[in-house]
């Protein structure tokens, strides 16, 4: 195959990726967009096998190894993606992103070993960039995975002198980068890789649980840029286009997410350097709360005219999306006005709730976005908060200095009655006490969201 044809097919794959991102930006075309992206990736992968790089011949060297490795990747990747539960998708995306970053770093290292002394300075700089950012993306994503999987604490990990350690690691990493560029050689590169991995860990540790999605998105954009840099070293236009696209769109997406959460990107990434550990929770635990039975809840709902359902991560954990729809349908049948109030970052990822409720066939027009639903809480008789906490926490508006301060919230406190379905009094993902739980117009229904909702549904049926 000629170089021209090879590049042309590569360009076609690049166009597929642009169409994929475009398609993914609109609900109607999203699925098609994803499939177009997959087609582009398949074309790009197949065509490499038919084009011999300079000084090489077909079939590719190490052909068996290449095919075998792809098979292993498929055998690991596909079942992981198929079997994962809705609730665990965010961490799987983080993990996939991490291995992508790791792959980019490995590619850069191999190419560096291969080029040896023949590498020019620009290539070495691109390699160094890929190794640093790829390794940071890899180790950082692993930490986000551990946080989301709750294999480690979801709270910011801040240790004394932490910021000096991080700054020191960063300085050492940059020094190692300069060393590689000047001295060349394998050892400096390995030291650089090790320092970058360490920096990735330290960089993500202080990020609080609720901000993790933003960090995943940022690391995703990082990985894109490393792919672009690899494309430069390997002289592949396709990799440059694909990597840059992801880098650019990922950056915008990160900003959009940060805006949806009312955070500045800078504050998210570096807030933990300055934040003091949150206190004043312990004493609050003892305060009285009003807890009710499923029957109490059913009665309250039966005489309501307007009910807003606010779903959160607890709904996803309990897999209660079908039950909540059953409850909504029942209320609608009784002539009660029902809407779902969807906070942009409810759950563990923006859009998490929409995906979950769509699975239960909840009609689109019942889903109300935050700006739409907030002005209506004044006319709402009952707000049912199902497994959500931080997204309705008034502390975001009233307590300057708390980790979620400034995040827009669903103002359920304006509703006449508030029902919280909770597993326990444990604070939400961000680890902040919620004053609303102690509000006199709040009723708590403890237990698994699905079990509780089922009881409420049967109680409501009998009324």
């Amino acid at each position, binding site marked *: 195959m000629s170089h021209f044809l090879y590049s042309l097919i590569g360009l076609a794959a690049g166009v597929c990726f642009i169409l994929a*991102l475009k398609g993914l930006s609109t609900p109607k075309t999203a699925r098609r967009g994803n499939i177009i992206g997959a087609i582009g990736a398949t074309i790009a*992968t197949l065509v490499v096998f038919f084009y011999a790089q300079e000084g090489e011949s077909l079939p590719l060297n190490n052909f068996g190894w290449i095919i075998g490795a792809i098979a*292993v990747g498929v055998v690991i990747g596909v079942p992981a993606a198929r079997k994962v539960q809705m609730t665990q998708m*965010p961490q799987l*995306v983080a993990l996939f992103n991490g291995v992508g970053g790791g792959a980019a770093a490995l590619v850069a290292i191999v190419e560096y070993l291969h080029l040896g002394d023949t590498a020019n300075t620009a290539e070495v700089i691109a390699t160094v960039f890929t190794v640093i950012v790829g390794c940071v993306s890899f180790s950082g994503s692993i930490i986000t995975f551990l946080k989301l999987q709750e294999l480690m604490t979801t709270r910011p990990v801040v240790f004394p002198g932490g910021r000096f350690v991080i700054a020191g690691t960063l300085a050492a990493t940059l020094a190692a980068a300069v060393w590689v560029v000047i001295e060349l050689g394998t050892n400096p590169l390995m030291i650089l890789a090790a320092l970058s991995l360490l920096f990735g860990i330290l960089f993500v540790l202080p990020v609080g649980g609720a901000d993790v999605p933003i960090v995943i998105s940022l690391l995703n954009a990082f990985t894109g840029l490393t792919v672009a840099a690899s494309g430069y070293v390997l002289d592949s236009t396709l990799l440059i286009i694909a990597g840059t696209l992801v880098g650019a769109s990922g950056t915008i997406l990160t900003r959009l997410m940060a805006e949806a959460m009312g955070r500045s990107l800078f504050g998210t990434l570096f807030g933990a350097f300055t934040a003091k550990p949150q206190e004043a929770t312990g004493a609050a635990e003892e305060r009285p709360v009003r807890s009710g039975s499923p029957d109490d809840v059913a009665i309250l709902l039966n005489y309501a005219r307007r009910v807003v359902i606010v779903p959160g991560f607890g709904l996803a954990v309990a897999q209660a999306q079908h039950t909540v729809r059953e409850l909504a349908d029942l209320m609608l049948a009784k002539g009660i006005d029902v809407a779902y109030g969807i906070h942009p970052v409810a759950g563990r*990822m923006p859009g998490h709730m929409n995906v979950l409720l769509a699975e239960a066939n909840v009609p689109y027009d019942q889903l109300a976005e935050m700006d739409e639903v907030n002005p209506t809480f004044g006319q709402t008789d009952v707000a049912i908060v199902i497994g959500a906490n931080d997204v309705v926490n008034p502390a975001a508006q009233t307590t300057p200095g708390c980790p979620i301060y400034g995040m827009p919230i669903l103002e359920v406190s304006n509703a006449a009655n508030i029902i919280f379905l909770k597993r326990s009094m444990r604070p939400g993902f961000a680890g902040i006490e919620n004053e609303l739980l102690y509000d006199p117009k709040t009723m708590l229904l403890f237990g698994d969201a699905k079990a509780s909702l089922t009881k409420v549904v049967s109680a409501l049926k009998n009324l």
Partner: protein
Amino acid sequence: MEPIAIISIFVLAVFVGFEVVSKVSSTLHTPLMSGANAIHGVILVGAIIVADHSSTNLELGLAVAAIILATINMVGGFVVTDRMLEMFKPKKGGEKK
């Protein structure tokens, strides 16, 4: 390739990337991130190229690891994105829009 050609491609791709996602509703943030994540799995192409011209066992070993990781990223990424979006498809006839 000419440096100016590379820089041109890079700059134009940045603008395209900004442009295509600038107006996306928060509903689609997660699938879009996941889809973009799958797209950078195309580093698989780079991993295959370096595996092709690996001359030592060390190089080959690292290249094979890179291929495995990149394949997981690409294939797994597209599959998981499809699963997220599967749930958006209208199933009931009664729904408008």
